[in-house]
């Protein structure tokens, strides 16, 4: 993975997508699972989320989120990691498997079967919210005032 910034960016993108996606979707799309060994069995913990004073200034601790992480190895030796939001161990397992398989010859199949649907659904959700928000955008107009007549 260290042979360039490109594969690292791609991996970063799919790990993020898997973490943000609903657990039921990730586990549902990754129902067919190959054999693997645990390097670190799924573990539920937390991450302290930080903000910045004034949005851009000094960092401060806002509060924690629940996170589940795990690491596993395929028979071929490829290692998959996952950090996913929430407390669903199955979600973490499915995400780590996707991460591992995406580094193998199975990548095109996994991309089409798991990542693309997740990406599309996330895009639709985002789009739908943006469209509802846009409908509540205020269109100001100025009334004709008496002295203008």
């Amino acid at each position, binding site marked *: 993975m260290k042979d360039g910034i490109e594969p690292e960016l791609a991996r*970063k993108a799919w790990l*993020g997508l898997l973490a*943000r996606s609903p657990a039921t979707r990730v586990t549902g799309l990754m129902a067919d699972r190959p054999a693997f060994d645990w390097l670190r069995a799924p*573990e539920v913990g937390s991450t302290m989320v930080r903000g*910045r*004073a004034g949005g851009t200034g*000094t960092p401060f601790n806002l*509060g924690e989120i*629940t996170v589940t992480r795990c690491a596993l190895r395929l028979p071929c030796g490829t290692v998959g990691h996952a950090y996913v939001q929430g407390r669903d161990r199955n979600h973490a397992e499915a995400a780590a498997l996707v991460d591992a398989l995406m580094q193998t010859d199975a990548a095109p199949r996994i991309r089409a079967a798991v990542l693309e649907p997740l990406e599309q659904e996330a895009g639709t959700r985002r789009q739908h919210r943006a469209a509802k928000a846009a*409908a509540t955008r205020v269109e100001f107009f100025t009334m004709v005032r008496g002295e203008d007549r």
Partner: protein
Amino acid sequence: MYVAVKGGERAIENAHAWLAEERRGDPGIAALTLEQIREQLSLAVNRVMAEGSLYDPDLAALAIKQARGDLIEAIFLIRAYRTTLPRFGGSVPVDTARMNCMRRISATFKDLPGGQVLGPTFDYTHRLLDFKLAADGQAPKAPTREAAPSHVPHVTEFLNREGLIEEAPADDTPPPDLTRAPLELPASRALRLQALARADEGFTLGMAYSTQRGYARNHAFVGELRIGTVPVEMDIPELGFSIEIGEIEVTECETVNQFKGSKTEPPQFTRGYGLVFGQTERKAISMALVDRALRWEELGEDNQGAPAQDAEFVLYHGDNIQATGFLEHIKLPHYVDFQSELELVRKLRREAGADTAGDVAE
């Protein structure tokens, strides 16, 4: 003084059984599911996440159900659960300029890039009870308008261009964490913001309101209020780079406050900041007002002796779990304490020659 006493076990067990029965209510009525609480009482869920200081809507829904809707009890449950979790690390500070906004308004600028987006707000509702809701749960479909998701710049950026508002330059000081080290004074702004983000909404609101009524008045305008989702990113040592580990909904409020200038600062607008988990705008605005009031010293303002300027007062009394813990413990058995008080009062009365009507029954 505390001594061990026994004898309450059966009464306690039976009380808990009755509590469980009362929690369920009339068994002829369908039980609430966690999904129903999460989806239909989402603002209660948001408050429990914010003040419980743990973002997990399913857990907050469970806590609300278990607490029979007592939100402070639910926050207590979340805080207790939180302490059982191993901490994997701290996130990269969330970038609220990249927020996917569902709501974004400014009270200071009418026409601003990105516009005034109202979102699903109670504002402008007539606050009349809607009896249609009692009859059925049908919701109208929210209208949509074609739009590309985009990021909108912060309002303060416009004022920054003219140098009219104080800047908030980025730094990377690791923030202090009051969940790891006891709160000590003087508290840095980072520590104050953490305490305020998880402080009781009612307390924070009362403090903020006091500044508006003239106690440390600082003339706040809501420069910007935005609600939306931001990704949470964390460095993962085993990967050697950072990844997004989730996405949270937050409310951010930036106030723009009048400032005459001081010995060190020119006249310009100053800022208060509020950032809270979930859709929690009353709390976020309150937080920003109290944050601004607490900044009097660094801005070279006068100490007017107002409660909202007193960091010790605000920070030590704003946490509803600490407060309720201490407040409610006085209802637990204090028989021995009280016995000694009783003895003392009797003695004093005897000495004063006042004790003629006989003792209090023992």
